[in-house]
């Protein structure tokens, strides 16, 4: 039930070592008390000479050093254990994110996810670096003290036995609250991160609308929320240590009273026994108290683990893949869509009954009004979205039986708003191809994409850093860098989502001839609004409201489809006044 516990169980070696060192620690604690008592007793009551206590002093010195060394060792073991577990959880999260289907990856705020990967995982640290070592110590050392004290003076032992259970009882009650509160705290932290990152991305927009003041207030609010939830968690911690302190104070007082009375009134015990008990009693409660604090930390970690588990255990509709291989890789496959359905969610937009055939080396254009589902269809074709009905056949094989890797090796997809990574231009183009990519092929791709003249005019050429933290590029330049990726890959299926929006006619011409060249060896499917991109297509799919309402060539559509005709007309005719 508790994931962290399972991980702690797995760390057998460290645990056994911690047990051994805790036993040793217990011995040093008791020995330290013994030496102290013996020295004081001899000097103070027995009037012994200084020489006679020298062995005791040396023994004490040894014990003190040993105690420090053991404390160090315990702490270190905890730190190491924490590192291993944090690494594990973080890579689990990253693995999960990398397997997410496209849709899931869009949901929620990125900043919140970043916060889970960083803050929540860091929060786990305490469970292993503090809680576990402390649990082991506290289940050993106080027991040893209790046994020794009871042997020396049973009544003190009894008082300890009666009062001690109050302490764990108390932190169990507190702990339940802590876990909930610290989950809340992490939530607040995530909300803050999410909001901040989103704001950061849209800062120019906010400024243009004169809204950065209001956004500041929002940021302030989530920052204060985070403070308040932190204080809530801390207050519980403080109250609990106050209570623990009081309980142990009362208990120590009780023991002191009892010992004192016996010593003075009944004279039934010796000074050395009394002093011994009095030195060990605070140690006994100290270990219990420390556990209380560690318990608090541990509970916080459990809250974090809960958050991570939630992030890991979301159910997603994934795209299905199999492990059949395509027969031939050198020729573009024949693609067939049969009665394909897809919906983003229960209501809202859906693709319906998509039927299409895309022969090898053909050029297909997808046209339609904005919002009619062109990009969605391209996503489906690319294998980014799960079908809810129907299938896609590739060379007669159902695509869900194909190997995912092989499929993606054959396609290139230039999306409507490609992302530029923070890195050099060369790296950004090289993203297009797996494995080692030579500089030469990158440059070739850049030439074909019509971006080479710009790159060469830059001081650092292909090594210019772009993306976040780098040089800015114009809209069309970004697009061309992304297009270069496709030219680098030389796939057998190319999906273009309006590759030439935002490009002037001249640049577009360069690009069109490069695409023409690509089409010698690949099937091309393009979403396009511009007539001249569409006109030469072998087939045009006209989409409306998530359906393909008509298929045919330019001439056929122009003849039969009034909407298509209107589209062509407007492009030729011009803009309204």
């Amino acid at each position, binding site marked *: 039930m508790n994931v962290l516990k399972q991980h702690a169980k797995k760390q057998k070696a460290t645990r056994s070592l911690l047990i051994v060192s805790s036993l040793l620690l217990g011995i040093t604690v008791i020995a330290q008390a013994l030496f102290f008592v013996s020295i004081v007793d001899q000097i103070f009551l027995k009037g012994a000479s200084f020489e006679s206590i020298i062995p005791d002093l040396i023994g004490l010195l040894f014990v003190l050093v040993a105690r420090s060394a053991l404390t160090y060792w315990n702490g270190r073991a905890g*730190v190491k254990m924490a590192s291993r577990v944090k690494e594990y959880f973080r*890579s689990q999260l990253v693995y999960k994110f990398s397997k997410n289907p496209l849709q899931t990856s869009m949901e929620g705020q990125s900043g919140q996810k970043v916060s889970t990967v960083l803050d929540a995982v860091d929060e786990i640290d305490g469970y292993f670096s503090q809680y576990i070592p402390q649990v082991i110590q506290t289940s050993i050392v106080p027991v040893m003290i209790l046994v020794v004290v009871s042997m020396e003076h049973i009544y003190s032992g009894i008082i300890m036995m009666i009062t001690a259970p109050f302490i764990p009882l108390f932190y169990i009650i507190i702990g339940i609250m802590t876990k909930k509160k610290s989950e809340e705290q992490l939530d607040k932290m995530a909300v803050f991160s999410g909001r901040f990152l989103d704001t950061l991305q849209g800062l120019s927009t906010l400024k243009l609308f004169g809204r950065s003041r209001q956004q500041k207030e929002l940021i302030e609010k989530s920052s204060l929320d985070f403070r308040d939830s932190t204080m809530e968690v801390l207050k519980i911690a403080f109250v609990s240590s*106050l209570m623990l302190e009081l309980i142990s104070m009362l208990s120590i007082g009780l023991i002191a009273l009892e010992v004192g009375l016996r010593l003075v009134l009944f004279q039934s015990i010796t000074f050395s026994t009394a002093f011994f008990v009095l030195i060990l009693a605070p140690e006994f409660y100290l270990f219990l108290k420390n556990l209380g604090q560690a318990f608090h930390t541990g509970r916080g970690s459990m809250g974090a683990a809960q958050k991570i588990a939630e992030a890991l255990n979301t159910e997603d509709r994934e795209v299905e893949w199999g492990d059949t291989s395509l027969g031939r890789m050198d020729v573009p496959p024949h693609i067939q869509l049969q009665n394909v359905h897809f919906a983003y969610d229960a209501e809202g937009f859906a693709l319906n009954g998509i039927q299409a055939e895309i022969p090898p080396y053909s050029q297909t254009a997808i046209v339609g009004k*904005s919002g009619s589902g062109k990009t969605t269809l391209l996503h489906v074709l690319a294998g980014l979205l799960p079908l809810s009905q129907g299938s896609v056949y590739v060379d007669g094989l159902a695509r869900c039986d194909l190997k995912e890797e092989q499929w993606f090796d054959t396609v290139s997809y230039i999306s409507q708003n490609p992302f530029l990574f923070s890195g050099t231009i060369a790296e950004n183009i090289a993203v297009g191809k797996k494995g080692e990519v030579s500089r030469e092929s990158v440059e070739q791709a850049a030439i074909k994409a019509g971006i080479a003249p710009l790159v060469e005019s830059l001081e650092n050429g292909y090594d210019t850093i772009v993306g976040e933290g780098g040089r800015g590029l114009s809209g069309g330049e970004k697009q061309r860098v992304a297009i270069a990726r496709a030219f680098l890959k030389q796939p057998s299926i190319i999906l273009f989502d309006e590759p030439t929006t*935002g490009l002037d006619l001249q640049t577009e011409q360069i690009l069109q001839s490069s695409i023409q060249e690509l089409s010698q060896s690949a099937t091309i499917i393009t979403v396009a609004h511009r007539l001249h991109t569409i006109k030469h297509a072998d087939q045009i799919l006209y989409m409306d409201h998530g359906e393909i309402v008509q298929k045919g060539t330019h001439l056929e559509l122009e003849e039969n489809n009034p909407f298509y005709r209107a589209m062509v007309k407007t492009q030729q005719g011009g803009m309204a006044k």
Partner: protein
Amino acid sequence: MNELRAVMKDMMVEKRDIYLSVLFGFLAGITAVALFASSGYLISKAALLPPIYTLSLMIAFLKIMGFARAFGRYLERLYSHRATFTMLSELRVNFYEKLEPLAPTIFQKYKSGDLLSRIVGDIDRLQNFFLRVYYPPIVLGFIFLATIFFTVFYSVTVAILLLVGLFVTGFLLPAWFAYKQRRIETRLREERGSLSSEVTEFLYGFMDLKLYQQLGTKKKELEQASARYIDEQEKEGKMATYHQSMNSMVTLLVSWLVIAFGAYLVSNNELDGVFLAMLIMISLTVFENAVPMALVPAHFEDSRRAAKRLHEVVQDEPVKVEPTKSLPVNKPFSLTMKSVSFAFPGEERTSLENVDLHIPAGSKTAIIGASGSGKSTLFQLLLKFYNPTSGTILYDEISQDAYSQEDIWARTNVVQQENHYFYGSLRDNLLLAKERATDEELHEVLEQVHMQDFDLNQTILEKGDNLSGGEKQRLAIARALLKKERLWLLDEPTSSLDAVTEQAVYEHVFHQAKDDTLILISHRLTGLEYMDQIIVFDQGEIVESGSYQELLNLEGYFYRMKQIEKEVLV
């Protein structure tokens, strides 16, 4: 150090809480010493069979000290943490405030994931500066002074030992640790920042990574970044335990010296034996407070780095010029550029070169030109996101310097080439343009951009990820329509729209902008015949300008483009 000074200044706002923390910290510490000292004394005294009332008095004292200590500790923690976290939350807001004016230039220097890490992680780290560096040494000093003062009455030797111990554990060892700390470079903060930016990029670039099957590679990189970060944490953790154990060993050694010297003194009758146990207890307890001093240098160094990372982002505050003029409200105005040249900061190449243009109030201008020729840059300058390297920009014949950025932004309807949508409802995203717009108004603009089917409560995902490309552009236009200012700057507002929708949308825009000044960047040449003026850019320079017919007659760039278009459109 400079960086921390700024933090310290912010801290002094919570003065009262700081004093209270010191006060209660001292109380908690000194009562603990008193408590254990008296218990040591009590037991020794008891061995000498004193009258019972002394005993009860002592025990009563013990109890009071116990309570005082528990409450003192509680209050100290409460006040110190309250002050600290209030400060941290203020620091976050301050950081954002200073960051805001630096956009959009800031993103050419820093990645957003890194900035996130700074505002969350680095500021969080500063808590240690107050909680462990700033006031604990003061508390420690007071406790020791009081204790040593008390001890002098019993044994000067022990008092000296305590003083030496304080010097070693409170100063010498920490100084040595500090020296060591300085030499090994800790990269914890930087590693956290780089992990954070890697994760952010991974999430933002997910689709491209997936398509190009680079998720695996990126995942590996992420794991390496995580491993590096954890390594640093581990190093730090081990170092902390080491320093703490070292310091605690030294404190135990001091106690050992106290017992050894004490025993020696007692055996030579220079000290009454009844105080021996008490002195031991004092030494054991008082040094408990000194152990955390071992971590002061590490926390100090860490806070310093954190403060530095925060400071370096926001240090170059833009020079604020007091506006002397404000733009006319509800009246179109003219724009003029006089030999304006501009290069982006840190760039050698100019993006605009000697640009002269005049846009009369209420006129419609189209700007065309190759990709990368400086069209969007022109808008950035008109919006005063950047200042020209040379030349002047005039609004209504008055220099741009006279107006504040906020004023200019408030008076323009802008559609950028890329527009941002925030995670939230469609309504919220529209209200950005007009805070108090009614739902009817919103429905009206949605209808104008052909998005009447959308529910105002619909959730918009981050960056508008669940909108189609054309829908995003239309929403941006809807915002501009809502804002109803008299200057329009439209940067390829319909590049992803089909021609039919485009035309319908333009109809509304041009209708509303009938009397307004409007500048449109466009790659489509059809329809430009209705514009008053067309300006053609090439490589940052204006190569042609004039009316549609004038440009055709010129048979230059525009004419050639028109030819190309004719070829492809027939």
